[in-house]
């Protein structure tokens, strides 16, 4: 049966990973109709929502793990996979448990998490530091200290793309690294505006100010163009999620040799557990309904999980798969994950609305030197106060 799957995975590593899904699904005798829409969630999501609400839904669709599809589920447009989840014991195999919780509404499972993405990585170009004549830093403070040397060598110390989610991501990574996990949770889970306005976060803004200075010269838009600056040694480093690793891999670089990864910026080694999930709109065609089930099952099968996540650069959602093929960085991540040093992803904690307001703030902050950290913090606290 033909099943149309929409997603916004179109970059090199992403496309290769999707191909793994498609291969596995087609091995079951079905056909994967690829509905890739480039341009990220902002381009793709209205298409998906329109089509689901317009009554012409696709077979399955990607959303970020979190609250993005909440209302579609509540409106009864999404298919309930509780039976399958029980049959295949998803509760037991998926870890951390928070992932499946994100898919659960009123005790029923509505989506299939397929990977874990963590944001808390600083990717460093060994070559850039070599050129600048400084050792590769091992934590954020050393990195900041190495900034002037990099600049002198004609490098951009920190690469940040122009897209707004990248700057917000950078800031959100700085919170647990500088102020710790508790502050992070207070701010984003409890939406505690007092903490957001407090001295801990002020320190984070200080760090963000450093980051802003160091990234002033990075004139790129897309995240992977920024990553490419690191890969080619034009930039010292980049704060970006583990998906960046896919780009290093496609470029044939080896972790530890060509590049260095510092989880939690080398300060607080913890990772967030965001990721992508697939949702399955309700369909009338029984054949397709059956195929949806097959697809869900395939996506979670151990073999697919491994092959997919290796390509994607993310961590499998199953704890029971063999990840010996994983590289240096991914292994670091797995270790942290195993230790349980995890925090939820902001997508799970905040609504898209709040995230978007944060985006607006940080994109402005990072490109507007005139906006002082203090002023920005005030606005930040206001957004946290109004979040729900």
């Amino acid at each position, binding site marked *: 049966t033909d099943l149309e799957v929409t997603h916004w995975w179109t970059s090199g590593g992403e496309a290769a990973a999707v191909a793994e899904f498609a291969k596995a699904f087609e091995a079951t005798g079905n056909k*994967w109709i*690829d*509905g890739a829409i480039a341009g990220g969630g902002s381009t793709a999501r209205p298409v998906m929502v329109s089509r689901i609400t317009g009554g012409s839904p696709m077979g399955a669709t990607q959303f970020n793990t979190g609250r993005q599809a909440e209302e579609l589920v509540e409106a009864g447009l999404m298919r309930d996979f509780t039976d399958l989840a029980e049959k295949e014991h998803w509760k037991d195999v998926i870890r951390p448990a928070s992932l499946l919780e994100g898919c659960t509404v009123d005790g029923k499972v509505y989506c299939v998490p397929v990977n874990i993405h963590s944001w808390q990585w600083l990717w460093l170009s060994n070559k850039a530091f070599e050129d600048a004549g400084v050792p590769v830093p091992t934590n954020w403070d050393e990195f900041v200290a190495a900034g002037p040397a990099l600049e002198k060598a004609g490098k951009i110390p920190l690469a940040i793309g122009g897209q707004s989610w990248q700057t917000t991501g950078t800031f959100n990574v700085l919170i647990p690294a500088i102020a710790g996990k508790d502050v992070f949770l207070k701010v984003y889970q409890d939406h505690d505006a007092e903490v957001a306005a407090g001295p801990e976060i002020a320190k984070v803004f200080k760090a963000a100010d450093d980051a802003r200075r160091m990234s002033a010269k990075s004139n790129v838009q897309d995240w992977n163009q920024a990553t490419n600056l690191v890969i080619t040694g034009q930039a010292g480093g980049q704060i970006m999620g583990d998906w960046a690793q896919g780009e290093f891999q496609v470029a044939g670089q080896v972790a530890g040799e060509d590049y260095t990864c510092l989880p939690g910026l080398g300060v607080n080694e913890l990772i967030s557990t965001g990721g992508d999930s697939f949702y399955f709109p309700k369909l009338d065609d029984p054949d397709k309904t059956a195929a949806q089930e097959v697809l869900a099952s395939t996506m979670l099968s151990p073999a697919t999980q491994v092959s997919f996540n290796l390509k994607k650069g993310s961590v499998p959602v199953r704890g029971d798969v063999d990840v010996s093929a994983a590289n240096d960085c991914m292994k670091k991540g797995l270790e942290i994950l195993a230790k349980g040093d995890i925090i939820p992803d902001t997508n799970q904690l905040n609504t898209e609305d709040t995230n978007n307001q944060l985006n607006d703030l940080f994109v402005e902050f990072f490109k507007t030197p005139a906006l002082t950290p203090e002023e920005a913090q005030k606005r930040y606290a206001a957004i946290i106060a109004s979040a729900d």
Partner: protein
Amino acid sequence: MADVQTLNTVAVGIDPVADRLSGPQGARPKRVLSRRNIFLYGTLIFVAAYYLVPLYVMIVTSLKGMPEIRLGNIFSPPVEITFEPWVKAWATACTGLNCDGLSRGFWNSVRITVPSVIFSIAVASVNGYALANWRFKGANTFFTILIVGAFIPYQVMIYPIVILLREIGLYGTLWGLVIVHSIFGMPILTLLFRNYFTSVPEELFKAARVDGAGFWAIYFKIMLPMALPIFVVAIILQITGIWNDFLFGVIYTKPDTYPMTVQLNNIVNSVQGVKEYNVNMAATILTGLVPLLVYFVSGKLFVRGIAAGAVKG
């Protein structure tokens, strides 16, 4: 016939004109390099260059290989001409898992554009005709709403139209998209046609009524054959608009009927390491080829049609 020379058209006797042969005579000498010409053509050529630079850059880039592009100067002509990017853009560039480039979208675009252009123009021309010649009570109010509608950002209307199409059961079909294009083309097209038909002498319309022709007979037999120039304008505007549309194409269709622009968006927006500028440019040109061709072929008719329709008001 009279021999003109014998007629006394000039005064007899002393020639009143003294410097008969010495002064200026015949055509005023025209200097090719007069100051006016230098200024005029100079400016025009300069401006034309400005308009051509992007096209030049697009073409030049699309003919270069990636290594050459990395060298930097986008204005330098290709050292080694390669058609690889074109082939890739047309046939092998990947969108997600589909690696057949723009070729797939081309026919989808044609399938979308042709009925949309025909339908939207048919509707708008009949509307314009009804507004110009059969004014009935309230018609102008609707028309005013329509004109104001031209100012509404498309994005705002996405959800209402989704709901509308869902309710009439056309969501996700080709006809749904055709209707969407007709709706958004309607304000400007109706304005054009209304203005044009208003400029057709009213007596012609009256004569046809006396001859017993009704609403449709007058439209098809009298008005339509006379409206060629404005139809050309409408067709050009609609082909351009619909062919270049991305938003509606992606929202109101399905992957197997995505128009070319969706593929273009995917090729351009899915960055794989370095941006493959040459492929992007080739894809861009390929996508714009149809409307460009339409313009090159019918530019003259376009101006004439605009003169006939858009300008009176």
